[in-house]
């Protein structure tokens, strides 16, 4: 039985992967494409918060919201200017979107390393201090991570289930054609969803900014991890994304604790086997 520190760590990781994967699946369920740039939006979110907090001196929660808005807007821009124009209605469409978003990975990383430099930056001063509980101790930052993630997830839940927008989104996700009949503009919905998804990625990044070091390349691992989380949960299933994120987070940290550096091969092998025996994941709808 791993010590409590490992479980807390697993919880923290679950929080990132959950938030990331949720945004990704949201985009996938509406646009039907995987946004491979998701990790770079995570990175940009972290940088926005960093500068908003250190340079401008905006309080952290506000800075987080700002990051969400800014990067969400950026995501909408990407959707409007690139994805929408590249995503032609044919078998090839998804292919071109994949290529475009993957090219954007290089674009954003290059831009970030030009603008912000490659040196590690940090926000350790946001919630300094450690809560000491005798045997184990938790830093206030990690507590903040958990709280913020809960807030964001609840907000998403309310948004999706209690508001007209959310209704429209879910409708467009389940029955695009029917939704069109009911006068829901799928175009606008997908634009909105892209914004929300990227905002979520940015939020994840900004939550993590005080915990990890910030550099232009921090987006890559979370991107792949949330991809795996989605596969575990099942492509296109929102609950799947959350559950997958939680599973991945804990598995990641417990396996690393048991087998140290063999953890990554275990993860990938696990996902390959899962894809072969049950491609639809835990919650996805079975394929023909």
């Amino acid at each position, binding site marked *: 039985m791993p010590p409590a*520190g490992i479980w807390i760590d697993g919880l923290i990781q679950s929080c990132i992967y959950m938030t990331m994967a949720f945004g990704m699946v949201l985009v996938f369920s509406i646009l039907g494409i995987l946004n491979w740039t998701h990790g770079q939006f995570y990175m940009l979110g972290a940088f926005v918060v960093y500068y908003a907090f250190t340079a401008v001196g905006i309080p952290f929660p506000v800075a987080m919201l700002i990051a969400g808005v800014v990067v969400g807007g950026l995501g909408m821009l990407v959707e409007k200017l690139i994805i929408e124009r590249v995503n032609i209605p044919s078998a090839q469409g998804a292919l071109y979107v994949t290529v475009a978003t993957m090219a954007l990975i290089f674009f954003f990383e290059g831009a970030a390393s030009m603008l912000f430099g490659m040196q590690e930056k940090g926000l*350790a001063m946001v919630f300094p201090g450690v809560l000491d509980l005798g045997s*184990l101790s938790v830093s206030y930052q990690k507590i903040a991570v958990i709280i913020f993630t809960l807030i964001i997830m609840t907000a998403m839940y309310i948004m999706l289930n209690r508001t007209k927008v959310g209704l429209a989104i879910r409708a467009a996700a389940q029955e695009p054609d029917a939704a069109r009949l009911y006068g829901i503009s799928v175009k606008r919905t997908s634009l909105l969803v892209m914004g929300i998804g990227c905002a979520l990625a940015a939020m994840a990044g900004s939550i993590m900014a005080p915990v990890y070091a910030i550099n232009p390349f921090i987006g890559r691992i979370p991107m792949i991890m949330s991809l795996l989380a989605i596969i575990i949960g099942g492509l296109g299933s929102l609950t799947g994304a959350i559950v997958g994120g939680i599973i991945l987070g804990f598995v990641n940290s417990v396996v690393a*604790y048991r087998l140290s*550096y063999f953890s990554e091969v275990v993860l990938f092998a696990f996902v390959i086997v899962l894809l072969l025996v049950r491609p639809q994941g835990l919650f996805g709808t079975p394929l023909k």
Partner: protein
Amino acid sequence: MKRWYNIATMVVITVMVLGVAWAPRPAHAEEPSIIKIGVPTAMSGPAAAWGQAGKAAYETWVEVFNKAGGFRVGDKTYHFQVIHVDDKNSPEGGAAAAKQLIYGEKVKFLAGHWTWNFPAIAAVSNPAKVIFMTRTGNEAVPGGVYNPKKMPYVVFANPSHEQFTSDCLAITKAFPKYKKIGILDCTLGKGIGWDYVDAALDKEGVRYHHEWFPVGTQDFAPYITRFAEAGCDIVYVAGWIGEAMAFAKQRWEMGYKDMRVGHSGPFITPLAYLGVCGKEAAQGFIGQYWACWDFKVTKVKRTYVKMCKEVMEILSEKQGKPFVYTGWIGWLPSHLLILSQAMEKAGTVDDPDAIMEAIRGGTFETTTGTWTMSGAETYGSPIVFGCPSALSTIKGDKEVYLSEYPMKPLP
């Protein structure tokens, strides 16, 4: 009308792009009195911070060195010129950079300081009879790629495993109270002769525990816990800057406050650590140190100290804020000093064999002290010298001299 405007802009853009693309590299004057030194170093990737900070320092130092009169061979005066090429911090990048420097720039000397792409660069430079002064290299262990018979044109400052050993010993000498040292490295560093480090530590009676983490790890909690369970009270991180910072921060957050952390690299600036780790967590963080004017054990020639200080001042003025990175001092300047003195001894600048002859077993004044090529009994090669593992630690927001451990050849 508008169409013409568009076409015109298109043309302009194309011309500009082509201009940028085909722009010839700045032509290097080919006077005989300039010695070109190729420096394959990391300008991108996780070690970019070191590479970029180093580049500025090296170029300034070379200016200062040339201004001070360069060096004389026979009756001619020679100046150095350094050409940096990004090796993308990877072996294939290093090989490509070395090829570009040797065949493209026609350099006769390489001086680099990265570890895990040394073998690739050496494989390119050695057949071309290009003298490669490397600060650290992976493969100098018996059975490794480096073989003094096959690679007569490679000069080591100190191979990776020797540096790590010496660092660990320096730490344990500095803090006798720590009972067990944990050694953390990225899986990238697995193959660089840790078994020799272990042998040396065993001989000195130091207790240690190894851990490796996969590339790109951000979350070190599992490894911290494993170290804690192994009873390590000080951990030496042989990874990149970011990883060392993350480790220090997270061990603090997990409540292992008295688990001390050291790093195999020098500080760029302590402020980065304060930013990433937080003030308390960064206190007592150990890094490498090269501000030779503080050295207690190793004696350094005053002129060199003055030079280095001058460079630091110039750079501070240039960037407007104090330039506190001292890691560069032990690297390129010492290589170039050894090279210049060897050339003076050999009386030639373009006969690699003669120069290597002068280097073998010779004694040289460098920015890190006086070194006699002392590797003979270690590697069966007389072309390995040492470096002091000089350590510093973070106090407040300053980096202060801690201790040093003059390198002795390994058994």
